[in-house]
């Protein structure tokens, strides 16, 4: 079958086609992709990087991007204690109203400009507009400014115990420091450039949304000399380039990792882990000990869920083990934990969560329904079908609620429709909703200020679901201003008790998503988010 009768093609391609296409491919060219250059680390992330501004959106990919390109004043170590990062030292005035932070020597932005107090002030101000904990901090702040190039001064209206904790916030809307000219863009519009003082520089021209994002080592970065611990310590970069690749198909990602075409896979589906674990060239470990908390969130604005009894009945009907078996499957990768502020943290407590962790709430739920006089109007649960980690919970919860007598209308949609619809406070008929499920990284819910679900401000200023519980707000304010840890622990337990009584939301399981990487990599760090410094090939 000669190729000659093909339409005349440019000579070179035809000769090559005749030569390569038939002989090489069929004869089984050595297929293993050439060894990637030692200095490039290829990682597959849980989804595509789209919005590059870590302040404008809470998307985890933007936060991870932030950790690469930007740096923070403080950061939590593995014991969740804030450690200085860009700050050399800080002093607090006696009346606790003036904080003076001196920055470390030699901190430079990627464009070579030195980091000044003004940059820090503008960055914290922009962060304060969008982030929950930041808004609380800004309500205490009097003024922010610079005293000489490398000193940042913050004055408060009244003393506030969590200033350092706020500046060390580990997860979404992390207080990253960016040049003043970027920080001044309004927080509703993305920052035009990616210039930070973080350990990696952003390679803009190789960025292909939905396909690939590339970071290069920032030569002038001055790491701290302490050993890295969680988000704190020295961020020493040991590779030249890091490529984040998107692979929509888990099957393909698994095969690519096994075949050595990629080095690192952030969140493989739990069922594939046994295959990876069995392979001695692979390392599987959970990097984020706080893990994830999956929650169910009723909408308190509209019947029937405006009645707390109905909300509590729904919560009582759920047994965490059913959810986690379906979602994760492998018992080592999940934990039955009723603590709203995540287990294994200082504020963890199991008050009010017995039905969730023991699964004995079915009868209680039926009584609550009878007591509330539930008339069978269907509960609309929004069910995202295109996100692997969110597809399972609605099905399990719907079945549990049906078992106790609820009428449930499980409406399938894609994630973006859910995100659009949950923002609507309209009644069910005009595109409203009764309940939805989502996941949070442990670091986003492990204290009452960060945890949006315990916000009781109602339709004005509350989080989706908008429960109107003034008691919760009082307790959160008390928590904010309480000086000692024991005091904070007691307040946190109180908040959780009230939240369960009001049925504002319920954690329906804590699970861990281990990361897999090829044994060739060393120095992979634990942390609230995947960190790429300290890794070498």
């Amino acid at each position: 079958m000669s190729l000659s009768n093909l339409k005349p093609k440019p000579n070179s391609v035809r000769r090559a086609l005749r030569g390569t296409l038939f002989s090489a491919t069929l004869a089984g060219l050595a297929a293993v992709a050439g060894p990637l250059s030692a200095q490039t680390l290829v990682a597959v992330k849980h989804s595509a990087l789209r919005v590059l501004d870590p302040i404008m959106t809470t998307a985890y990919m933007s936060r991870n991007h932030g950790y690469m390109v930007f740096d923070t004043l403080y950061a939590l170590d593995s014991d969740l204690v804030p450690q200085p990062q860009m700050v050399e030292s800080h002093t607090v005035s006696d009346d606790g109203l003036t904080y003076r932070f001196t920055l470390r020597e030699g901190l430079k932005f990627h464009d070579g400009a030195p980091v000044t107090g003004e940059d820090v002030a503008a960055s914290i101000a922009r962060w304060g507009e969008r982030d929950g904990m930041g808004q609380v901090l800004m309500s205490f702040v009097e003024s922010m400014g610079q005293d000489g190039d490398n000193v940042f001064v913050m004055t408060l209206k009244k003393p506030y115990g969590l200033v350092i904790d706020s500046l060390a916030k580990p997860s979404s809307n992390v207080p990253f420091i960016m040049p003043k000219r970027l920080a001044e863009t309004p927080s509703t519009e993305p920052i035009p450039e990616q210039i930070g003082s973080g350990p990696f520089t952003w390679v803009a021209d190789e960025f292909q949304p939905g396909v690939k994002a590339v970071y290069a080592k920032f030569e002038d970065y001055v790491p701290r000399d302490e050993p890295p611990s969680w988000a704190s310590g020295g961020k020493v970069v040991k590779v030249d380039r890091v490529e984040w690749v998107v692979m929509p198909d888990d099957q393909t990602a698994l095969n690519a990792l096994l075949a050595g075409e990629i080095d690192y896979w952030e969140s493989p589906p739990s069922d594939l882990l046994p295959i990876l674990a069995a392979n001695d060239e692979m390392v599987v470990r959970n990097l984020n000990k706080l893990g994830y908390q999956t929650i169910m969130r009723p909408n308190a604005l509209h019947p029937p869920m405006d009645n707390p009894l109905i909300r509590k009945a729904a919560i009582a009907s759920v047994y965490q083990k059913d959810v986690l078996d379906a979602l994760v499957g492998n018992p080592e990768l999940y934990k039955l934990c009723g603590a709203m502020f995540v287990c294994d943290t200082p504020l963890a407590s199991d008050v009010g969560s017995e039905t969730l962790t023991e699964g004995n709430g079915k009868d209680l739920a039926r009584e609550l329904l009878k007591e509330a006089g539930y008339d069978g109007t269907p509960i609309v649960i929004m069910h995202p079908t295109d996100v692997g980690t969110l597809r399972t919970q609605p099905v399990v919860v719907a079945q549990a609620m049906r078992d106790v007598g609820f009428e449930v209308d499980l409406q399938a949609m894609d994630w973006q429709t859910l995100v659009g619809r949950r923002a609507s406070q309209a009644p069910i008929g005009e595109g409203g909703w009764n309940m939805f499920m989502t996941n949070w990284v442990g670091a986003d819910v492990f204290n009452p200020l960060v945890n949006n679900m315990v916000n009781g401000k109602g339709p004005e200023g509350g989080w989706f679901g908008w429960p109107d519980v003034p008691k919760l707000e009082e307790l959160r304010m008390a928590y904010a201003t309480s000086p000692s840890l024991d005091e904070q622990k007691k307040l946190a337990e109180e908040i959780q008790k009230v939240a369960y009584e009001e049925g504002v939301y319920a954690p329906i399981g804590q699970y861990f998503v281990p990361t897999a990487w090829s044994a060739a990599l060393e120095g992979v760090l634990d942390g609230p988010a995947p960190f790429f410094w300290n890794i070498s090939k």
Partner: protein
Amino acid sequence: MFGYILQRLLAAIPVMGFVALFVFLLLRLTPGDPAAIIAGDTATPEQLEAIRDSLGLNDPFFVQFFNWIGQLLQGDFGTSILSGKPVIELIQARMEPTISLALTTIILSVVIAVPLGVIAAWKHGTLIDRFVMLLSVVGFSVPVFVIGYLMISLFSMQLNWFPVQGFRPIGDGLGPFLQRIALPTFTLTLLYIALIARITRTSMLEILGDDYIRTARAKGLPESRVLMRHALRNCSVPIITVIGIGFALIISGVVVTESVFNLPGLGRLTVDAVLARDYPVIQAVILLASLIYVVINLLIDIAYVLLDPRIRYS
């Protein structure tokens, strides 16, 4: 001839107009709101409004439509809502994998399918004919991703002849390019062999019944000459049509193959855009796919003129 082409060009304009209106209407009448997506979890209603204003989503329907068309005519496809990059750049980066997959698949399919179709028609009614048709129907019936997975597990994982995924532009040398494009091409070729073989067989059967074939045989020409020189030449018009349509379909429709083999093509760009409500990207890609379809139709018409003299002088 020129008049004929001019006429076809003019006919294309209302078609593109209709496509533009249809896609714009489709997106505007749907639930889901890009602003909410960008704003993320903690946006307050005012911030949502601000974002919507900045994207111009609040203007009346027709204003949005006309300034979109206005931009379009100046070649400005707008910027992607999510990534802020101009849509043109996004599309350009994704063109090469899609075009190369389309080319390799079509070439391989034609080289295999046309002879199969000719043989099936020549031996009409015999076992060979039935076998070829059965084979082609199988190509039609198996879902693409099932074939894809089987190909990967067999050729990549066990035999490791080919890498699992990824795409290397042809600029990086023919070897790596062909290595990576091979499996997706084989997967798609199975489908297009079915399509082209059937069309070839059906039109060949029709032509073999015509008078000039009987004349050719009456001239004592060998059967191969009758088939190749007379029958196949006349059969080229329907074959060119199905190849053209096939090429256009591959450009815009191989989303599944692209995701299974992780080829950063146009298909995936559109699916990501649809799932993320990135209106400018969705509109631009669907418009572009339609433009490609219309242009390919025009090329097919021109090919008609070259292949069939009767049309040249109509």
